[in-house]
């Protein structure tokens, strides 16, 4: 499955990046193709392109603050979870996706 994701937390120093790393790892293990955009203290990194988003079957938002450019995801199925979910139980997010 093609997945895009966005992670963002208020301080944007650690958890944004750690959540991104966990999502990437689990997705890879499950055989999904994932690209994760981080919106941290250094701004948007690994930015999702229009075509990334268009090709994705699902978008995961693991966020504790409002993200920039939410409108880019209009028309894509979005699963939004608190960022902690991606740190504590990232597998659970992917279980949700399967259903």
């Amino acid at each position, binding site marked *: 499955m093609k997945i895009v994701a966005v992670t963002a937390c208020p*301080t944007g120093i650690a958890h944004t990046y750690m959540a991104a790393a966990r999502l990437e790892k689990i997705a890879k293990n499950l055989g999904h193709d994932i690209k994760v955009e981080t919106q941290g203290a250094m*701004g948007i990194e690994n930015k999702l392109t229009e075509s990334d988003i268009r090709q994705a079957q699902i978008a995961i938002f693991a966020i504790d603050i409002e993200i920039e450019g939410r409108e880019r995801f209009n028309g894509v199925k979005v699963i939004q979870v608190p960022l902690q979910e991606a740190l504590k139980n990232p597998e659970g997010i992917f279980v949700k996706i399967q259903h």
Partner: protein
Amino acid sequence: MKGTSSHFGPRSQSPSQLIIHELQEYLRKTRIRRVHFSDGSTAPPPLAYVTNFPRLSIPLTGCDRMQIARSGRTDAIRPVRGHAVFVPDHAWNKPEWSEPVEVMTFLFGVKQIGISLVQHKGGSHIQPLAVKAHVHSGYDVPTHSVLAALMVLATDHASGALARLLTQSLLYACLRLLKSPRKQAPRKAIRTYESICLYVQENFHRPITRESIAGYFGLAPNHVSRLFRKEGFMRFNDYLNLVRINRAKFMLQNYNMSLKEIAAGCCYSDAAYFCRVFKKVCKVTPTEYRATHIAHAPEEPSKTSAMNVTSVQ
């Protein structure tokens, strides 16, 4: 100058009571006469302080000699009581602590405000004495608004009456926050964890370790690990590395510094080790990162004093 030992002698007051008392006395007797604004227009020298949140410091006694960046130049300033130094996010300052000084510093973090009262005796080998207090309930509207207004002034290096009065107002707003009864203060473990995070963000350029942090906060090293595992879902060292790598990214984007200088600025003694950690965290090497994220031509000073921490891409 009055005696500097009194605040740190044997005391019955808690750190936050002491800070409230000192701030109250300061505001009763002193008006802000001058505000120095720093920016990030020159590369931070080794051991400079730089954070991704704004800071304000006011000397109480003595002279807080330091270097700051101003409009593309590095200036030496000599702030004394009645002066304030405002350092916006990503700007830097480098205190000298070459002579005795007592200084109160406000860290305006995202989730909390940290206030420390530090006494330097002069001479670099003596550990400073410090007390610290935190406002964990976050910002109220006055504090947030006054800080935002001051951030705007900092970007135009405005140094007139407005800057002085806003700085004074910010001190009053902080005092009010400190004195207000806590509504729903978070659990102690969260408070301690957040205080440690703020400390790491302020001091990442110095050789800090889990053990030194534990000593500073009066905790057992294992307790520090447990706090990070339980409250932050990570290891202490991972957090420290992320803070340092985050700062390295900023320096790679904004300053024409060598990898060795950047590694040293983030307290990695060895540039090769720094590159390994960077690659592990970011999946690309520092050089590749710089090539894709370069923000400004090297000779152009970076515009880093803006309040906005959004992307420079």
